[in-house]
């Protein structure tokens, strides 16, 4: 079967095969009726739950609500982490001042801030966005700082001997050099942001994918829970692939 072999050599072939295998096992397990539907709904039931929520507009509304929170919280975190991380990586005084503080806060689990955030800011959008910020900002900053420390000294000194001052060196030497690592840092920490938005919505929200899951739990709608989990996974995967594509296009020199 030369066609089959050629097909399997495609970089995605094995990955898709793995997913299909799990789907198939899932279908077999539910089709022979050996498992209570309440615990494990069939793939068809999950698909129907998805279609139903899609046609009622709920799915899109929930997904957009969650995506918006992630986007705002993570944009704040990423935007602030970049200059602070670069400052810490290039300036030893700033580094010694902030690194212990950030190292400490980094180990405080972000969900543990939820009670405080609710006391301070109520149940609006702000505490959810801030949770995502708290949960990703310190990781983003410290990982960017580490990337800056690997900028070869010669690259910065060359710019200085060519007449470059501090700011142009940061924007034209340090920033382009660390761009691939920064994108990778964002890609990795985006997964935490996506986790945290669901956690925030499980606690308190009127809409969002996490909210939908906690409502489904109340009515024992495991098909809707499965549907929510799968949608969350798919959106996360798409974001991840987006970052990878961006990295390939913007940083082809680093490959």
């Amino acid at each position, binding site marked *: 079967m030369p066609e089959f072999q050629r097909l399997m050599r495609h970089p995605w072939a094995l990955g898709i095969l793995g997913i299909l295998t799990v789907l198939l096992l899932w279908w077999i397990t539910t089709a022979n009726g050996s498992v209570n539907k309440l615990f494990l709904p069939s793939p068809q039931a999950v698909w129907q739950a998805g279609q139903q929520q899609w046609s009622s507009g709920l799915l899109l509304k929930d997904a957009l609500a969650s995506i918006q929170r992630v986007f705002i919280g993570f944009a704040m975190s990423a935007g602030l982490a970049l200059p602070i991380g670069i400052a810490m990586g290039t300036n030893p005084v700033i580094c010694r001042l902030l690194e212990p503080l950030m190292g400490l806060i980094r180990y405080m689990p972000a969900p543990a801030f939820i009670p405080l955030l609710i006391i301070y800011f109520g149940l609006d959008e702000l505490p959810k966005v801030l949770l995502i910020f708290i949960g990703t900002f310190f990781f983003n900053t410290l990982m960017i700082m580490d990337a800056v420390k690997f900028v070869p000294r010669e690259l910065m000194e060359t710019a200085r001997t060519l007449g*470059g001052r501090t700011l142009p060196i940061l924007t034209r030497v340090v920033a382009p050099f660390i761009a691939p690592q920064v994108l990778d840092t964002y890609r990795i920490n985006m997964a935490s942001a996506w986790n945290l938005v669901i956690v925030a919505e499980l606690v308190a929200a009127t809409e969002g994918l996490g909210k939908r899951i906690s409502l489904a739990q109340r009515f024992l709608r495991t098909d809707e829970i499965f549907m929510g989990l799968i949608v969350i996974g798919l959106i996360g995967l798409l974001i991840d692939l987006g970052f990878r594509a961006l990295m390939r296009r913007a940083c082809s020199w*680093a490959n």
Partner: protein
Amino acid sequence: MHLQIDRLCKSFGYGSKRKEVLREVSFAVHSGEFVALVGSSGSGKSTVMRLIAGLDQPSAGSISIDGRPVTAPGSDRGMVFQKYSLYPWLTAAQNVAFGMELQGRSRQEIRERTAYFLEVVGLADSARRLPRELSGGMQQRVAIARALAAEPQVLLLDEPFGALDIQIRESMQEFLRDLWQRTGLTALLITHDLEEALLLAGTVHIMAPSPGRIVRTVSVDLDRSSMGHLRISPSFLALREELAQNLRSLEPALTC
């Protein structure tokens, strides 16, 4: 142009850990001259270069260009490092243009000078290639073009061919000799390779380690029209051998 180095001293560390790296190094470089500093590792020759570039501050002594003291890096002193100094995300042409952009020259001027200096180093065909697509020798030629394009008064070459294979090294030495003769640049070369220094420089300062200092200065007055002949001419070989013995006698005893 007159680069004057006067009783330069440099120490690192404090108290009992203080290490004297340079002791009273003095010499001068004038317009159009090619001067070399030769020494083994630990002789402080790279420290001298970094001080002249303004990347480090001397503990004592002074460096001046035409009477103006050197306190910080500046584009009047172009530097070529041993390796890793091209910006990997920029093409050869963009690397050459980089310094001129920092200087704020006009676009038109940058384009013309970039093309000119790529031509000078023989890489006009490689203008759009990334550093990783260039050989080690080509990368160093881009680095030299970039330094020259910023119009330095003196070119500082810190072991520029130290990371290259021997054959490429020899062709790069001829390239640099030609470049010097064609453009009339002023250059200060740091090398541990005595032959390289004698082939290229009119004045060779020999440095000894612990602490780094100049122990001998030689004026090299040889016919440089053919480097191939020069490498094997008796007068060149005799001078090289004499200085090599001199350098060996300066090495600290191996037993310590």
